[in-house]
């Protein structure tokens, strides 16, 4: 049974669609989720996430202090607070199973590292997830100082510097936490959000607002969708067998 919650906000008027295009900074695709070996069979939850209303404009970033970063863009880069696609699709929503997976069920974290790259004085990806214990490699592709501060409550935060291009640091997180905030204090606009999960049942919406969570064993699950500006929404989905269910969410822009 799919359910939409909290989705009604009447009178959606002019819809500004912000381009998610990543101006000059050449970019690898967000790291692929490597949950295949754990989860072959099972059900799938897919969905599309949209918003109603007018998306706030992403502020332009003033990179005049950092020529090396500025040079990586043809047009002035903006923050990525609300990345919208066609037809009010909402990207960068972290969708995960917040309840329903039996606590006794253990999942092995992939050994392949998820990469967080600092390139052009922005984080790539901006919103992403790792499993508990999974390596996260933080990399600096800029020839200048970034510090990476992780703000966590359930995990230990940290604050390390990477003043040179090519520096890396690999960390992992022992405790589930949605979200761990990552920020650079040298460049106040640099923020990334990391969901740490005990299982592989999470996804981040792409530019078309869609997501897919595969391999769920039969059960009734609470699905939570988290967005950095628009907050969270939940839905309850029951999976029987290998069926595919839909869970759409609509946020109200504010």
């Amino acid at each position: 049974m799919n359910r939409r919650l909290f989705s009604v906000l009447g009178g959606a008027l002019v819809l500004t669609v912000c381009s998610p295009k990543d101006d000059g900074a050449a970019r690898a695709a967000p790291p692929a989720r490597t949950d295949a070996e754990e989860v072959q069979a099972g059900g799938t939850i897919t969905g599309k996430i949209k918003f109603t209303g007018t998306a706030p404009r992403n502020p332009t970033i003033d990179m005049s202090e950092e020529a090396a970063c500025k040079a990586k863009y043809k047009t002035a880069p903006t923050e990525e607070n609300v990345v919208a696609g066609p037809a009010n699709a909402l990207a960068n929503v972290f969708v995960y199973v917040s309840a329903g997976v039996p606590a006794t069920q253990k999942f092995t974290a992939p050994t392949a590292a998820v990469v967080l790259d600092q390139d052009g004085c922005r984080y790539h990806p901006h919103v992403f997830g790792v499993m508990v214990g999974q390596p996260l490699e933080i990399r600096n592709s800029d020839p200048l100082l970034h510090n990476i501060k992780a703000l966590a409550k359930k995990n230990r935060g940290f604050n390390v510097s990477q003043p040179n291009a090519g520096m890396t640091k690999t960390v992992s997180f022992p405790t589930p936490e949605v979200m761990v905030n990552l920020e650079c204090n040298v460049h106040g606009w640099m923020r990334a959000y990391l969901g740490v999960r005990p299982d592989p049942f999470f996804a981040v919406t792409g530019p078309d607002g869609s997501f897919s969570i595969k391999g769920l064993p039969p059960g009734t699950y609470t699905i939570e969708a988290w967005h950095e500006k628009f907050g969270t929404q939940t839905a309850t989905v029951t999976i029987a067998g290998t069926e595919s269910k839909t869970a759409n969410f609509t946020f109200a822009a504010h």
Partner: protein
Amino acid sequence: MISSLLALVLIAAQDTTAGKVVYQKWCAGCHGDNGAGDGEAARFMLPHPRDFTGAVYQIRSTASGELPTDADLLRAIDQGLPGTAMPGWKTRLSDRDRHNVLAYLKTFSTFFADTTIKPKPLQFSRAPGGGSGADALRVGRQFYDSIGCRKCHGDQGRGDGPSAPTLKDDAGRPIFAADLTQNWRFNGGGSVEDIYHRLRTGLDGTPMPSFSDLLDQKFLTDEQLWRVAQYVRSLSPAEAPAVRDVIHAPQVTGPLPRSPRDSAWSRIDSYWFPLVGQVIKKSRWFDPAVTGVRVQAAHTRDSLALRVVWDDRSQSPDSAWLAHIGRVLAALASDDSAAAPAQPGLWPDQLAVQFPLTIPQGMERPYFLMGNATAPVYQWRWSSQGGAVAGLARGLERFEPLAGGGTVGAQAVYDHGEWRVVLARALATADTAHELQVRTSRAIPVAFFAWDGSNGEHGTRMAVSTWYFLALDEPTPARVFISPVIAMALTLALGMLVVWRAQRPKHVL
């Protein structure tokens, strides 16, 4: 040996129940009953008291993200955190009480509950020699630039780097990049070793990161990181400045130095005076950005000049700091006098130099906080937006400029986080009823007030000093030097005369 044995015994005997009693009596007022850094006094403090529930600590010997050792926590308890409201408790509480309270404050966070995890201190090397030599300092400066210290701490280290206005702590409260020219205010201590340790561990909870990875990944050698620490240490004086009560103004032979850049100032003694927040009258100010002024004075036969120098991270008004002002006003409780919450504004930097209206005969002086209705004070007021005026103050908010602004002149320079302002005036003026008539060889009371507009300071929200003294020294007359020489020559001549007389062959008559 005995003391370390005693320490071991005390650590073994840590008692959280007894610690709670100590905590509630001495610590809870700021840190809160539940250790969340939300005690009664917390809302008047920036930086805010430590929130023990997250177990995030600035001053550690462990890697960034790790828990502190007991020794780290005890150091903070014993010595306090300079530059903050946290005092040292070593002389105030017994060894047992301090160890017990340490055990108790660890109970506020679940991170300490897993006693199998023992925080491991980093292995620190020893400082390489020659750290104060020119070559070492040049290397230190090179890496100070290359690893990006200047981004926050600024080109000259005064905490005025391009990222400085945006800095926040973990709770989103405003935080200043340390002014590296004031090592006596460094939270973790001001020695070369302290600085090196902070570079290695970072200050968790603040924007200051750990630079240990640079060593591990061989982007920097350990010696080079030590050179950075030694360079940073060299930015502060060898000793923390001491307060001397009387500013001596020598009489200069050349023209009065009216420019802040005049080389004559380099030959004149400088006096340091600490400033504190104005917390006596509403609306009060608990977060003064100007922590002290350095003052020099000189005079000629007819004029007086004062050079006041102070560190200020911003040349106000500066819109880059507007968001910081908003954060300061949001983080600090205003006292109950404010009708509406203060809105951030683009305020200038200001300085006031205060004298009594007449030189007092005895020790009685007007009220230091800008006089009162019956006993006004005479002030020079300088603003980064409009030069200087002289006037009379009859209380904190009752300043009246003299007609035409009086006769005080000002020249100011802002350079890399430092204001240098010279205020000059004739010793005697026409308006004797409203202007202090300055005379030599007298102790003239003087006090200082400063506002950092980009920290939200204006009106009664300022930094204040108490009364000190200014003395215009008379030049030493030439006879002071010549008389002893003449006296010595005469003494010598007389002595020789006596000897000559004594040695003269005696004539037997």
